[in-house]
Structure formats: C-alpha cells, structure tokens
C-alpha cells in the first residue's frame, strides 16, 4: 500500500491506504477525527469541509492522493476550548446553530474565507457558505457570527 504524506493540523502525517479513498474516510477512519461530518458523500452538502492549503474543500469528494505534501486543516485544528478561533467564539456568542451537525464544515468554509478576505460583506459570507447546507435554518445567525469574527480579527 503506498504511503501518502501530508501535514494535518500542523502535524506531519503519514497514511498507508488506497490513495483513491476519500480524505474524509481516512480522517474519520484510520485517523479517528470525527469533526468533519459525513453528509452526502458527493460534495453536495459541505458537512465534511476541511481546508486544503487555503481553500475549503469537500473531504468526502477529495481523494487521499490529492493532498500529498499539502497542508490539511480540520475543525480539530481550528481552535480549542482553551484557544478558541474567533469564529468559534462568535458562533457561541451568536448561538449560531440549532442541531450543529453542519457547523464543523461551515466553520471551515468561513475560516477559508477569512484567510482570503479578512473583511467580507454579508454577501461575501453568503457566497462563501453557499456550498454548505443547513437544514435547521440557522443561516442568518451563522452569517452574523462570521461577520462578528471578521470584525474582531480586524480589530486585533
């Protein structure tokens, strides 16, 4: 089995697996990371979004081989209770979820947006999150939370 190397949340990682398997499958399976969620398996819902380089991608639709030598960030690498990312703080402040199953993917899409565009407009945020589905109807709270995080990061 070929070995694929990439950096995962800042840590050099090596996986021996069929390179055609999806990144999500590897993350949730052998690597035991349950943050990225399975929603559809075909890149249509965004629940599995992770950041590869500086782009949010659907990890269910990303073959393992394609992240060779790349930087992969999952929700686990975004922040922690002790060191929350401003987005995580803002999502708590705005109570920006109902069930929260989609949130890990949405946070990663939002984080990728803020890497590219530190001061997005409401429309920018909606465009960046348009590949993420939320069934509970928490869209507007999430947009407010992303704008709040951007403002906080800009003020620093």
């Amino acid at each position, binding site marked *: 089995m070929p070995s694929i190397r990439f950096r995962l949340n800042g840590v050099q990682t090596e996986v021996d697996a069929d390179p055609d*398997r999806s990144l999500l*499958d590897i993350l*949730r*399976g052998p690597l*035991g990371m*349950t*943050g990225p*969620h*399975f*929603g*559809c*398996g*075909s890149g*249509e*819902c965004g*629940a599995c979004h992770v950041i590869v380089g500086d782009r949010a991608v659907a990890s269910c639709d990303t073959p393992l081989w394609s992240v060779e030598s790349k930087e992969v960030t999952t*929700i*686990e690498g975004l*922040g*922690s*209770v002790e060191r*929350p990312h401003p987005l*995580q703080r803002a*999502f*708590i402040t705005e*109570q920006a*979820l*109902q*069930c*929260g*199953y*989609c*949130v*890990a993917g949405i*946070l990663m899409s939002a984080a990728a947006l803020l890497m590219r565009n530190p001061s997005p407009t409401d*429309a920018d*945020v*909606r*465009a960046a*999150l*348009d590949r*993420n*589905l*939320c*069934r*509970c*109807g*928490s*869209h*507007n*709270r*999430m*947009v407010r939370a992303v704008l709040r995080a951007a403002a906080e990061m800009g003020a620093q």
Partner: protein
Amino acid sequence: MLSPGKVEIGQGIVTALAQIAADELDVDIGRVQLVRASTAASPNEGVTSGSLSIQQSGRAIRQACAEIRQIFLTAAAARLGIDANALDISDGTIFGPGNVQTSYWELAEEISLDRDATLEAPPKSAADRAFAGRSVPRVDVPDKVFAHPRFIHDFTLPSMLHGRVLRPERSRASLAELNENDARAVAGLVAVVRDGSFAGVVSETEHGAEAALGALRKGATWSAGEALPDENDLAAFLKAQPVESTIIDTRTSSKTSDKQRTMRRQFTRPYIAHASIAPSCAMAQWNGDRVHVWTHSQGVYLLRADLALVLKIPVENITVEHIEGAGCYGHNAADDVALDAVLLAKAAGGRPVRVQWSRADEMIHAPFGAAMAIEIEADLDTQGEIVDWRHVIWSNGHVARPGRAAQPALLAGTELAAPFPRIISSNPPQANGGGGDRNSIPLYDFPAWKIESHRLLTMPVRTSALRTLGAQGNVFAIECFLDEVATERGEDPIKFRLRHLRDERAKDVIRAAAQRANWKPEKKPGTGYGAGFARYKNTGAYCAAIAEIEGEQDIRVKRLTLAVDVGEAINPDGVINQIEGGAIQATSWVLKERVRFDSERITSSSWTDYPILRFSEAPQVQVDVIQRSDIEPVGAGEAAHGPVTAAIANAVFDCLGVRIRNLPITRDSLVAAMELAS
C-alpha cells in the same frame, strides 16, 4: 441530575429544561447535569414531537423540582431548628437568620427522592424565577462548535463493527436473487445477512462495509417496483383513493344565510422530505437474548416497543438509549436504522455494530411528509363577507410512528421473509391537535362552517410525521383564501383578519408583525408583501408572518417579519432561534421542495434532485417575542411554517398578480399560473 424523557433534536430543549430546574431548585444552571434518555432509567415521556416538550416535560420538571426544594427546606428546618419559612436557598446553600446554613449536598445523604411527586408544592411565581425568561446560552453549543463528539455518528464502542443495508431503488421492490460471492471476498467482511428482502453486510471497517455493499448491490436482482402516483397530478391521485372520512368540526348559524355567490379554490402541497443533513445512524449490540441499542430516535420507549414486536422478545430484553443526531423534523429514518443495526448485529457474535444510511437511502426510504389536496368553498353575501365556509382535505395520514400499534412501523420489518405489513399512516385525534386536519378549523368568526378530512387508505408513498403535520397545508389554504376574499372586497387583509378575530393574543401578534414591517409599505414594482397567521394546533403558539418578496420569474424572499406568543418564553433567544429556523425552513419548502418520482421510483435521491434553500437565498428574518410570563409556556418549533407559507404566497400575488395554489412556488409554477390567468 435531571433525567427528562424528552430528547435534544437540535431545538435546544435540554437548555430550557435545565433553566426550569435551576429556577425551582435555586441552583446555578451549571450545576444541572442532563442525563440522556434511556429505557433503562428515564421516565417514559413518549415521543419528542408536536412542540410539546416545554408543556409536558417542562411542567413536570417544574413541579418535581418545586417539591424537592420544599423537601430539603423541611429537612434543613429540622436540622437547624428554624422555621422553614425563615430559610432561603442560594445556589444550593440553604441559609437562615443568624448566619446558620446547610446545603443540598449536606442533606442529600439523609433524604430519599425515590418517591412520587404529590404536586402539592407550589412552583415559584414568574417574578421569582432567575433563569426562565432569560436567553441563557445553550448547554450543547460549545461541544458542537469545538467538534467534541456529541452526535451518535461520532461515537465509537469497543470492538465496534460497521454495517450497511442494501435497499432497492424501485419502490417496494423485493429481492429476487442475491449473489453474495463478491461481497464475501471484500477484505474485512464479517457477515452477509439476508432475511427475505432484507440484506446487509457487516465488516471490520466502515470502508470495508461500503465496498462490500457495493459488491452486494451488483449481485442483487430485484422484482419490479410498485406503482407510484403521477407526480404532476397529486390532487387527482389523492381524490381518487379509497378514504376514511371524518367530519372534523361544524358550526351552524341561526341566521338565514343571504348567500350571493360561492367561491371555490383548491390548494395542494407535495410530499416533502425531512432531508436531515446527517444520514440516520444507530448502533446495536447483542448479549445472549438481550440487546442494547443506541439511537437518535425521538422516542426511546416507542422504538423499543416496535423492536420487541419485530424480534418477538420481551421489551425487558431491550435497552434503548438516546444519543443526539442531526436536526430532526419529525419521523425520519432514525427508528428504521435502529432496527437495521439490531438485525445486522445478530451476525456480529456479540460485538456492537454501527449502521449508517446513505444519502440516497435517507432521501428515498425515510418517511415523507404527506402530500395534501385541500378544497375551500365559501359562500359570500352581497358585501363579500363570508357567511358559510367548507374546508375539505384529502391526504394520507400524517403519523405512522413506531410504538403505537400492534404492528411495527419499522422499514426492515416489511422486508423480512415473514414480513409485517406496511402501516398505513393515521391521524391523531383533534383533541391532540389532529393530523391532516391540524389547523383546519378556522380561528375566525365565520357564522357557519364544515370541516371534513379524507384520510387515504392506500399509501404508495410512505408518509409519517413531518414538522406541523397538516398545519402547513391547511394554514396555507385558509390564509391564502382569506387574502383573496379581502382583496376582492377591496379591504386590507390585515384589517380583514383583525375584524374577524376575537382572541386578543391572536390580534396582538398580527398587530405586532404589521407594525414592525410598517404594513403596508408603499408598492414598488417588482416587490410584494403578504401576511399569514395561525395559532399552531389552535391551542399552541400564536404566530403572524409578513413576507417581502422580489421577483418576476424567480421569486426571492427578501424579508420575513414575525411576531410570536408562546406564553412564558423560558428562553427567549431559543424561541427566536426556533421561529427563525422554522421561517427559513418553510421558505425552503415553499420555493424549492418537492419529492420527485416516476412510475416506480423516488427519483429525488440527492441534494441535486432535492434542493433546499442556500445561504444566498435565505431571507432576513426579524422575530418579536411577546413575553407573557404568567401564561403556561408552549413550544415554538412548528409555529412559523404555516404563516410563512401563506405570507409568501400572498406576497407573490401582491407582486405579480397571480395566485399560486400548488406548492412549491417555482419558476415553472409561476409561468403556468400566469398562462392560466392570461
């Protein structure tokens, strides 16, 4: 420790229940530990549905905690030698005059709470509550934002195996032949399970289970499917089926009617999918003749009852434990996948098996919200006032939940070699809010009416409970019809409603929404405004909605302005969150959603074929909560759907001059309606 029988389904209920407990006990909310519902220890509170958790569980917790407080005060009084009335409690510390004190924790050893509540301890008055009425942050939000495992999908049990179930693409096709050889050759395979048309695989890994399922699918030969109705003429199908007919309500007028003419309109709504973001998931583990099940079902006891029917073992041999799933909007596949896991785990040699459905199976095989055809006929007098009103519904029943009948309602039960029949959905009685007839009795002061419901006795498309049951369809029909009557009279539709309502709480939400939306803003080209109102189940939350839309061929809902009255809002931000979410979900139903099918297959098997509202399409939503601290609280989760649906449809008329009476309101339906009108 607070152990409710109701479960978290993304609605924030555990936080609201913790607030109620913390208030009555005088402890900080952080001290309240929620215990997940399980048939091993939790009270049997039936199913978490119908916006009833605050009413039922909340009231029980309030009573029980008030009594616990009193029990401890009595014990503290005895220990301290002080009259109980002189004692007070602050975050669990009980203190009295002269700096004497004890606490819940000091007294806990000597007090047994293992007794039935007497209901004799009076709960606090609204003014004395510290947490209820405040927007306390939800207890589950940090875990979800930091991705700490909280969903059943993220749990792992020691030595856990993975299972997948093979389901037909064609509706109710049976498995004629199954070549298992290729599946058995997949690395990690533990077992291929087959019982009639139920077939699945168990593997050491999730990846292996997926691969084995793929191989099994190639080896399967299915019979033809059962015929499905014409998706483009649901009303004709619904009206042509054998039905059970019920007169829901009648009102007769002593006055002789001076009917001048009759107005008759037909409304329809399609089948609607739950379309949870997570596919359903469960785990099961056998130990001899006992089985433990982990599930995101809305009703652990009800699921247990159905599992016992299928397995033919006593309920005592089954433990069903709740773990959160993704947002749940009614009876989805949560219960079905639990039986799948139980059946596959039989072949796992005592190891736990985790089963997760595919996106396609979730979209095809989970029960749908029932399609409806509704006819309203009103007799109008010379002034255009309604003198008689007839409302007739054709629909499948709206509930086929587990645990309610002598037959199981679980999907795999219908697939076994010795199958159980598919349960035909029924409707709860009006006293419980009704089903297809929910919200069909007008709240307006029409002098006479007759409400009739025809429940289908056939069910080619599997239906069961979806948020609001029939209320979304009925409120859509009533509120659009009224809008049309008011418009024909040349009367403002808000004034028309206020003139025909007697309930001040109803009028207050309508007035509040209208004021907030500056009703009725000046007409601009390409913009329209519409209103809708209902009191959910006619006994629950009052909600009024005003929609502002833009559009010509494509409709965009720009803004929704809502006012809601749930009585005492335990967690006002929780209420706002539920109403906002309901309003956006309803917008999605209205503009996009319709289960698609051909003559024998459900074809909307992916998000491409069953699109839902996206971030760029979500309207702005403003919610005013009318707080009434001294009125018993009711739930908020289903209050917005009907009013929002009607408000959007009425705004479409205001904008484009056409009445859309068949949901969803899409470019195609607009073009068809305009052609019909011209």
